[in-house]
C-alpha cells in the first residue's frame, strides 16, 4: 500500500508542477461557469416593456386593457404603456423601447359580438424573442377565455349566434360570483431547480471532472513513452500496485478539483450547492464515476494523444447528453431517458433533489448510487485493461 501512495504522490507532484491538472480541473471550469453566469441571466429576473394600442375601446377589448394586462404589470415582469396608433407602436418596437405591442383593431368588440372573425396582432421585437413569445401566450389565453365565454353565452341564450357585448360582460361578472364546484388549488410545490449560478458551476464542474480524472491512468501511457514503465515493473511491487497508484492519482486530482470548485463558486459566484453532506456524497460519486470512465477510455488507446482524444470525445458527448449545456426539460422523452446513462445527468439530478425545499441527503442517494455503480463497472474494465498495459505479453 505504501508503494501505491508513493506512485500517486510522484504523479501528483508532476501534475501540479506542469499545471495541467490545475488548468483543466479548476481554472477552466470556474472561468466557464463564471462566464455562463454572467452571459445567461436568470429567468427569475426577466422583465420587459409591453405597449398596447386599443383602437376599439370596446367592452371586450377593455377586458384585455383593464384586467389582463394590468395583472401582468402587477406580477412584476412587464411594464405596460398605452400607445395611440400602430405606426408609433411599430417604431418603438423597432427602436427596442418595447419588447412587444398588443394591437387591437377598431371594431374588435363588435366583430366578436356578431360572431365574426376578430384579430389581435402582436408586434414583436426580433431581438427579444422571449418577450414576443410571452405576449403571444397572454393574447392566446385571453382569446381562449373570450371564445369560451362567447360559447357559454350563446348556449345560454338558446343558440342565438349574435351576442350583445353587454351580455358578455354582464354574464362574465355574474359567473364570477358563483362558487365553482371544483376547486383547483395551486400548491406551493417544490421547485426542484438549482439557481442558474449553481447549475452552471455544477455542470462545468462535472464536465471538467472527466478531463481532470483522466490524468491518472493516462500517465501509464506517459510512463511507457518515457521508458520508465519497465523500471516500475522491475521494482518489487505488483502490477496492481502500479495501476491502483495511477487510479488514485486521478481520483485525488478529481476530488481536489471538485472541492475547490464548490468552494470557489460558492464564495465568488454565489452558487448554492445545498446540504454539504449531500453535496459531498454527490461529488464523491461524480469523482468515482469520472475516474472509472476516464480509466476505461485511456486504456482503449495506444498513445497518450489517442487517449486524450478518446477521453475528450467521451467527456463532451456525455456532458452534452447529460444536460450540462442545455436543460433536458424541453428535450424529447427518449433523450431524457438516454441521459440517465451519464453520470452528469445523475449528478445534476441529485443536486436538484437537494435544491428542493424539502430535499434531504436521502433524496440524493439514488443519484450517488448510480454514479458509484457506473464508476465501479467502467473502472473495473479500465483497471483490468491497465494491468494488461503494465504486464508485458
Amino acid at each position, binding site marked *: 500500500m505504501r*508503494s501505491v501512495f*508513493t506512485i500517486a504522490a510522484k504523479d501528483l507532484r508532476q501534475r501540479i508542477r*506542469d499545471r495541467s491538472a490545475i488548468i483543466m480541473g479548476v481554472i477552466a471550469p470556474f472561468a466557464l461557469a463564471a462566464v455562463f453566469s454572467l452571459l445567461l441571466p436568470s429567468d427569475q429576473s426577466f422583465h420587459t416593456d409591453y405597449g398596447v394600442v386599443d383602437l376599439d375601446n370596446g367592452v371586450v377589448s377593455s377586458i384585455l386593457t383593464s384586467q389582463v394586462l394590468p395583472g401582468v404589470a402587477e406580477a412584476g415582469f412587464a411594464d405596460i404603456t398605452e400607445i395611440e396608433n400602430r405606426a408609433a407602436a411599430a417604431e418603438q418596437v423597432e427602436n427596442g423601447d418595447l419588447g412587444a405591442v398588443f394591437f387591437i383593431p377598431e371594431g374588435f368588440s363588435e366583430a366578436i359580438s356578431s360572431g365574426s372573425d376578430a384579430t389581435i396582432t402582436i408586434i414583436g421585437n426580433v431581438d427579444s424573442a422571449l418577450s414576443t413569445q410571452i405576449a403571444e401566450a397572454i393574447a392566446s389565453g385571453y382569446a381562449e377565455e373570450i371564445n369560451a365565454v362567447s360559447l357559454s353565452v350563446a348556449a345560454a341564450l338558446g343558440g342565438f349566434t349574435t351576442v350583445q357585448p353587454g351580455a358578455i360582460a354582464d354574464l362574465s361578472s355574474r359567473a364570477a360570483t358563483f362558487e365553482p364546484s371544483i376547486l383547483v388549488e395551486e400548491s406551493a410545490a417544490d421547485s426542484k431547480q438549482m439557481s442558474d449560478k449553481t447549475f452552471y458551476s455544477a455542470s462545468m464542474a462535472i464536465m471538467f471532472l472527466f478531463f481532470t480524472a483522466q490524468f491518472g491512468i493516462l500517465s501509464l501511457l506517459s510512463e511507457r513513452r518515457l*521508458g520508465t514503465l519497465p523500471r516500475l515493473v522491475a521494482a518489487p511491487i*505488483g502490477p496492481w500496485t502500479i495501476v491502483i497508484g495511477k487510479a488514485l492519482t486521478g481520483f485525488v486530482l478529481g476530488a481536489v478539483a471538485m472541492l475547490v470548485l464548490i468552494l470557489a463558486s460558492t464564495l465568488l459566484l454565489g452558487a448554492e450547492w445545498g446540504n454539504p453532506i449531500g453535496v459531498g456524497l454527490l461529488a464523491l460519486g461524480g469523482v468515482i464515476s469520472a475516474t472509472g470512465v476516464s480509466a476505461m477510455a485511456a486504456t482503449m488507446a495506444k498513445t497518450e494523444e489517442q487517449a486524450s482524444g478518446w477521453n475528450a470525445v467521451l467527456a463532451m458527448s456525455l456532458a452534452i447528453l447529460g444536460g450540462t449545456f442545455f436543460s433536458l426539460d424541453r428535450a424529447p422523452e427518449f433523450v431524457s431517458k438516454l441521459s440517465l446513462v451519464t453520470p452528469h445527468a445523475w449528478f445534476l439530478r441529485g443536486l436538484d433533489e437537494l435544491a428542493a425545499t424539502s430535499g434531504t441527503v436521502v433524496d440524493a442517494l439514488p443519484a450517488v448510487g448510480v454514479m458509484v455503480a457506473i464508476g465501479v463497472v467502467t473502472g473495473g474494465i479500465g483497471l483490468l485493461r491497465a494491468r494488461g498495459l503494465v504486464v*508485458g505479453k
Partner: protein
Amino acid sequence: MGEMARVLECSGLHKSYGERKAVDGVGFHIDLGETYGLLGPNGAGKTTTISMICGLLTRDAGEVTVAGEPIDVGQIHAKQWIGYVPQDLAIYPDLTAEENLMFFGRLYGLSGKALKSRAEAVLEVTGLIDRRGDKTEEYSGGMKRRLNIGIGLLHEPRLLMLDEPTVGVDPQSRNAILDSVERLSGEGMAVLYTTHYMEEAERLCNRVGIIDQGKIMAEGTRRELVELIGERDRVRVVAEGNLDAAVSAVRLVEGVESANRSEGGFDILTGDARVILPALLRAIADAGGVVKGVDVVEPDLEAVFLHLTGKALRD
C-alpha cells in the same frame, strides 16, 4: 564456485510472438562477483531474455531464480535483489535527480535516513551531487545515462542487469560506464551485461554467452570460446642476430604449433600466446637472436561470432 555464490540461475527460457521464436531455450548462470555478457546483434533476443529474467515479461516456459528465489511477473519478492538498467533512459525529466532517486528508492523499500544516505552516495558516485536539485531535462546526455545507471545501484542489488547501456553514448561517458561496471564487479556484484559491442564484452565479461536468433550458440570465457572454434594466437617477432637458429629453437618450445621466417623476424602460431611468451623470448635469446619487438594477435569474439553464425556482429 559453490551454490552459495550463485546469484542468477535461469534455464529453458522460451518466448514466442506468434510463429516467431524470440527466445528459444536460453539458460545460463551468474555467480557473485562475476560479469556475464550476452553478446549478439540487434534482434538476437537479448532484451527479451533480460525482460523475462526481471519479471517484466511473461515467459512461455523456463525457470529463473535470483539469490535462490523464483522470479516472475507475479513473483515479486526476488525483484529486490535486482538492479535493472533498461536500454533506454528511464528517468523522469520533470523531476530532479534527487527526486528520481528518492522515488525509486521508496519503491525498493528504502526510507528515512537509509534512503537519504543511499541517494547521496549514488549522486556522489555518478558525479551529479552539484546538480542534484536540477530537473533532469536540463542534463546532458551523459549525465542522464549516469543517473540511469545510478538508479539501478540505489538499493545495492546483488545482481545488476545492464541492457546495452552504452548505445548512443559519447566515448567519454562510455568509458566511464565501463569503468563503473568493472569497479562494481570488483566489489563483488554479479553483473549481467548485454551488448552487441565485442570490445565491451571482451573487456568486462568473465564469461560470455553468444546469442543469435533467440539461442545461446556458445558460452564460456573468451579463451574457451576461441578454442571452441579452433582459432590460434599469432605472434609476430621482430628480431636481429641468428634468426635461423632462433626459429629452430622456437619450434622446440612447448605450445608452439608452427614458426616461420618472415622479413625482419618470424611468425609463430600457438594456442595461447600469453602462456608461452616468456619461454619463447628465452629460447630466442639463447639461440643468439635479439628481440626488437613482439606483436600478439589474438582471435577475438567477432571471429567467434562469425564462425558460429556465419555473419558479423553488426549485420
